[in-house]
């Protein structure tokens, strides 16, 4: 049996999947984002942090669960993560504010108070991230 055409097709399929599967999306939890008319293209910046907030208020960063922010452990873990990331990056010239940005990705059904808790941590001394962007789905053109 001549296997050559089958092997050709299978290799082509592998190449296709390797190209279309975007490994950079590993940071993005599966969430249903709300639609926003004014949402701009999300261009990946270097050192940008992503915090995913699930519908039940649980935090997920880089596929790692941090728990709910009402739990003191989760709060400390998120604080520690953000502070460590901020230390790796630069500050805005002449200020103590981090020049790195943070993308908050929350499900459309997540309570906004959970997002506010993340924002509150962002404002704390030693973290001070002010570029906090809200993820939203864009209209299909």
């Amino acid at each position, binding site marked *: 049996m001549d*296997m050559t055409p*089958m*092997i050709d097709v*299978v*290799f082509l*399929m*592998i190449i296709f*999947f*390797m190209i*279309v*599967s*975007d490994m950079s*999306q590993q940071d*993005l939890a599966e969430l249903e*984002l*709300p639609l*926003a*008319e*004014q*949402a*701009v*293209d*999300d261009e990946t910046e270097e050192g940008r942090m992503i915090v995913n*907030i699930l519908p039940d208020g649980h935090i997920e960063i880089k596929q790692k669960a941090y728990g709910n*922010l*009402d739990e003191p452990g989760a*709060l400390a873990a998120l604080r520690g993560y953000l502070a460590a990331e901020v230390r790796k990056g630069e500050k805005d010239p*002449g*200020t*103590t*504010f981090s020049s790195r940005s943070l*993308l908050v990705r*929350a*499900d*459309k*059904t*997540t*309570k*906004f*108070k959970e*997002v*506010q*808790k993340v*924002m*509150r941590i*962002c*404002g704390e*001394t030693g973290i*001070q*991230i*002010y*570029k*906090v*962007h*809200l*993820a*939203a*789905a*864009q209209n*299909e053109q």
Partner: protein
Amino acid sequence: MARKKAEIEEVDLDLTPMIDVVFLLLIFFIVTMKFKVLEGKLETELPKDVGVNSSPVDELLEKIEIDIQPDKSRPHGIKVLVNGRTMPNFETFRGELGRWKKLGDAAGTVTKATLYPSSTINYEQVVKVVDQCLISQLTDITFAGVAFDK
């Protein structure tokens, strides 16, 4: 003695292990792949009025307080109040924001909106309100703080 004829040995290439591996790779990519979703962001920023590098307080500041309360009888399930006045719909809301923005621009002041979402308001409802602010060219938006549950 007759010279032995050189025999041409036929070599069979066993493709089975390669096909196995290739199929495993194919299955891996099919299972793990996610198509790129059309995802964007609202470029909001937190105020820099904490810590030692506080931004100077704008003396001339047009402040708009936007309350977002749950109301299932209204579009998107929310009631929006601008400085205490209930907005019947998003069109009126945008008009009101535009009016404040024009007043601020004419007076040379900064128009700043602070959002006060009720604790039961969800992310989608806030994004809708922020979206309306941005459509009205109101970009200076802050969020009221929230306490951590004990």
